[in-house]
């Protein structure tokens, strides 16, 4: 169980949803075009059931008469036609908002849909969308809504997550890409990567790279990984007609939107690597004006569109984000309340593991290094570490690269899964690991990141 100071999660976590809700259910009527916004802490659960009408949660429609349980969520149930909800449990805050940005999101969707239809006819590539904006502007919510609408319209959009602060279908600190052909999981946000048993919502197949740092600005890994991801996504698109016409949507960290003196190197890098055709700027007028000045009039005209930040966007405190990340890591190993998973505890000798870690301060050396593939840079991305108490409570990414491969290969290798370091016995030279499934200790290179932060007592 995750112990989080101040959140009292340890006591609540075992079966928070099986505890009968003491508070009686209440009915909430929503008139058309309004939304019910709520915040639920991780220790509580809020049950929402659609009684009549239609309602959606970030674009994904609520099934009638199905109860959805939310925990550790800040969300909104929106209705186009009006609805009646049955709500049980406690919310930290809840209110009904009449002014929403859903019309903008729907308009954005229909604009993209027109492009997809055209792409489908001409067998061309569909819209390649980049969503940028400051922290807590609702980027991920917008990406989710656009994805959900596209899926609903029978498309198969690809979603690329480049925000290490929260994971998509994987743990935080990873970059993922996945094609969505099936409905998004309302309770889990996106859905689940494959598990060895049945899953209530169809599983999604992510391609995962390990980033392992907190910010895009840190280190030399961000841009090469973006390049690698773009390569894989583009290859997939070329071979997969359904994905090709649907295009993709890229979610970014808020940090890239800061830029230096109107220059957004990371955004520019993403745009050029992914051949972005549409930029959706959320909230920030300055970013919008900077980007539209640069891209709107360029030869390969990129549509730069500004969308208003929703009034429902709330600042997510560091404590909340941390709890969210821990919940994601926990879900990776243990699953969610509906489908519990059984991870495997195992122990390995020091010599069985080849652990690499991003060198501290490597960013200083290569900040202006231009070509990140430069031969000299490669050998100095990582340092090999022997297990020590430093890596306890950290995640290790199992890459597909051999320990003898060059550092660039390790960096560019996709991830098969994650290990959690539960204990390091330096005397016996053994490491106690938590693996998602039984099997031998991987012989490939494993990368230890500085991000996400330590997850204390995931085991035991």
């Amino acid at each position: 169980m995750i112990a989080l100071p101040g959140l009292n999660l340890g006591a609540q976590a075992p079966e928070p949803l099986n505890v009968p809700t003491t508070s009686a259910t209440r009915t909430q009527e929503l008139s058309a075009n309004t939304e019910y916004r709520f915040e639920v802490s991780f220790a509580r659960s809020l049950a929402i059931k659609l009684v009549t009408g239609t309602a959606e949660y970030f674009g994904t429609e609520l099934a009638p008469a199905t109860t959805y349980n939310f925990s550790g969520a800040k969300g909104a149930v929106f209705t186009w036609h009006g609805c009646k909800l049955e709500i049980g449990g406690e919310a930290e805050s809840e209110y009904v908002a009449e002014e929403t940005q859903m019309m903008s999101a729907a308009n954005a969707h229909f604009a993209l849909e027109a492009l997809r239809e055209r792409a489908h006819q001409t067998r061309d590539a569909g819209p390649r969308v980049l969503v940028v904006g400051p922290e807590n502007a609702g980027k991920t919510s917008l990406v989710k809504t656009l994805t959900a609408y596209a899926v609903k319209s029978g498309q198969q959009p690809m979603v690329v997550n480049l925000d290490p602060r929260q994971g998509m279908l994987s743990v935080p600190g990873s970059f993922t890409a996945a094609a969505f052909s099936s409905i998004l999981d309302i309770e889990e946000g996106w859905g689940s990567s494959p598990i060895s048993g049945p899953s209530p919502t169809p599983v999604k197949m992510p391609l995962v790279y390990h980033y392992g740092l907190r910010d895009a600005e840190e280190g030399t890994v961000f841009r090469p990984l973006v390049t690698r991801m773009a390569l894989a996504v583009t290859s997939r698109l070329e071979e997969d007609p359904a994905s090709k016409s649907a295009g993709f949507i890229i979610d970014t960290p808020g940090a890239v939107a800061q830029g230096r003196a109107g220059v957004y190197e990371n955004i520019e890098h993403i745009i050029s690597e992914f051949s972005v055709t549409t930029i959706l700027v959320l909230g920030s007028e300055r970013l919008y004006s900077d980007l539209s000045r640069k891209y709107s009039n360029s030869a390969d005209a990129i549509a730069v569109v500004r969308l208003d930040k929703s009034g429902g966007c709330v600042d997510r405190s560091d404590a909340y984000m941390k709890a969210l990340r821990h919940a994601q890591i926990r879900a990776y190993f243990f699953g969610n309340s509906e489908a519990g998973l059984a991870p495997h505890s195992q122990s390995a000798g020091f010599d069985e593991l080849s652990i690499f870690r991003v060198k501290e301060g490597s960013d200083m050396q290569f900040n202006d290094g231009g070509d990140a593939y430069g031969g000299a840079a490669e050998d100095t991305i990582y340092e090999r570490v022997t297990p020590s108490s430093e890596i306890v409570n950290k995640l290790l990414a199992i890459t597909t690269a051999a320990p003898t491969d060059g550092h660039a290969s390790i960096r560019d290798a996709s991830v098969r899964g994650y290990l959690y370091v539960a204990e390091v016995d330096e005397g016996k030279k053994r490491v106690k690991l938590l693996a998602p499934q039984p099997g031998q200790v991987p012989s490939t290179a494993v990368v230890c990141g500085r991000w996400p932060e330590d997850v204390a007592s995931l085991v035991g």
Partner: protein
Amino acid sequence: MSSISDEVAADFKDALQDLKVNSRPEISNLTLIAKENTEHAQAISTVLENHIRTARPEWRLPSLYVLDSIVKNIGTPYTVYLGRGLYKTFMEAYSKVDQPTRKAMEGLLRTWKQPVPESMDSRPVFPLEMTSDIENALNKMRSVQAQMQSQRQVHALPARPVIAAAWRNTPTPPQNGAQFVAPVDPRARQFPGQQFGQLPQPTPTPDQFSQPMGSVDLNELKEEVGKLIATTQQAFALNFSDPSLQQKLNALLQLKKMLDTQTLPPQQLEAVRNQIRALAPPPAPTPVQMPAFIPPPIVHTPQQPPTPTFQPPATAAPVNLAQMLANFQSPPAVMNPSPAPAPAAPNLADLIARMTTPQSSTPNPAPFYPSPFPGPSGSTPVPAHPIPASAPAPAATPVPAPPTNLAQLLASFNKPSAAAAAAPTPPPFNPALPPQIPNLSQLLAQAQPAGAAPPPPNNASWLLNALSGLPNAGTPSNPTPLGSEPMTRQSSAPVNVHNDVELTTASMKQPRPHLISRLYDAKPNICTTCGRRFDATSQGREKKARHMDWHFKMKDPDAAKRGVHRSWYFTEREWIEYREVDETAPEDTTNGPSGAAGRVKKQAKDRYVLVPQDVTLAHAPCPICQENFEPQWSKDANDFVWMDAVKVGGKIYHATCWEEYSKGAGIATPSTPDSVLGKRTAETGTPASGKKLRAF
């Protein structure tokens, strides 16, 4: 969170208190603060309202300018928060300030009825509903003042102004002489009855004052008609193929012309206004308002000779307006559309969306569409009639076919009602005739000789029906009655809705409610387990059946026992080559030829076992050919499996190897599809279900 709100609010309050003159920099500074703290909008709005209500009268105008600046420059969420108390805030301030300030406030109010200058959003600053409440109150205030000054009675009907004047002379006025200190919110108030103070309290019954308000009303009415025309034009621009909209627009344009050129008796103005109000979209749910688009105006002068498509006989529903007004004065709270805008006038936007898709099989939206829509109109092939059938007071309807659209209403205003009662079902509105709405000019021409009224069969419920029926003008007047339309058109219609959304910042802000039907009504068949929607076609039903099968398979009670765990992610290569599988897609039939030999082969090849948990087994090769098994993802099992594999006696063989071996040895091949697969299957036989049946 709330403490931050309090802090922000306190700062804002301090800044407000320093605002004593109309100073632009100070006001824009306050606006900026408000803009940067939209998350604390509620707190800021409360502070601002309180300040306007409590500050010294001479400082109120600057604060009102702050309010004005905030709602115009920021908009939501402030319009919502400030809009709620706008009536109270405005009227309290208005009642306290001097005459020049009042003039300035009236100026403000006028701008609130219009869209923000240079804004893309064509909606007014505040919903018209709010501003018109204030305006009504101001009008009454003025009229009463005028009466008090001249000390004469303008009209004898309502005796209340007299009482007001009488109170004016009493040394101790009644309790509610406290004027606007605590006015009742127009949406919450009760009919005030006899409790009138010197200044009239705002009441929802402007009808009572129709005489003195006549001239004001006319302007207001013209404005409202103008707005409605604009709205309709926009809707028309979006959906120009809809003849009903065109007709509605036509009727409105003529009404405007009539208002401009003729002097109508006040009662008729009243009725027209009620009609217009009912037609106008309620402001709260996004009205359809686009940047102006001017379609070629089709203007008929009222004098124009009637186009002789058909002649509405004089037997059409007659109205005695005087009688009608007298009747509906008794239950005024019911009659006035403004206190209950939602049920009386459904959102026009919704309407347009609905028009293309009548509810067909949307699960249960009924409670949210209080307007008497005829439901899935298949049951009611006569479009003119469903409205009274479901109108609020159908029992009281003496006329079986009340006017269902504006043209008819207008027609009935002045129609010589001689033969009225004789014809309960007026033939002119026979739905079989293609043009549902008779040429308005024709009607208006007829309307002129308003005759003396014989005992009319009408009462308040007639108007009620007309009111509730009117917003539907588009539906029944559709040249091809919806009732006779096949379902297919209804389900496919939304897909054909023109999607012209451009990728520009401005375009994102335009409300396009008609497109939403693509997400909902276009696929009316919803999975009650997960909310996925399917087409109403037979293909859609097949897909849904397979989808439900999938749900069934996923309900595996043994899953927990098997120890479910997270699978490894794909490698790059696997991911690039992977193709998403849709659980609703028919089973893949492309593998292998369909000949008999091929089928056997395919059958064997399709066998699989889950990748075993047992380590020794997991690494064991096929005992026959000694080749290793390749794990693959199977959507059927929702797990990694070894394809072409069969488990016999604790060992795993290649199914094909085993088949060859067993054929020779004469051993039956066991069934392999795992326990994950359930028994339920789609009615339509897919290759998959056939395979399962043939397994033995």
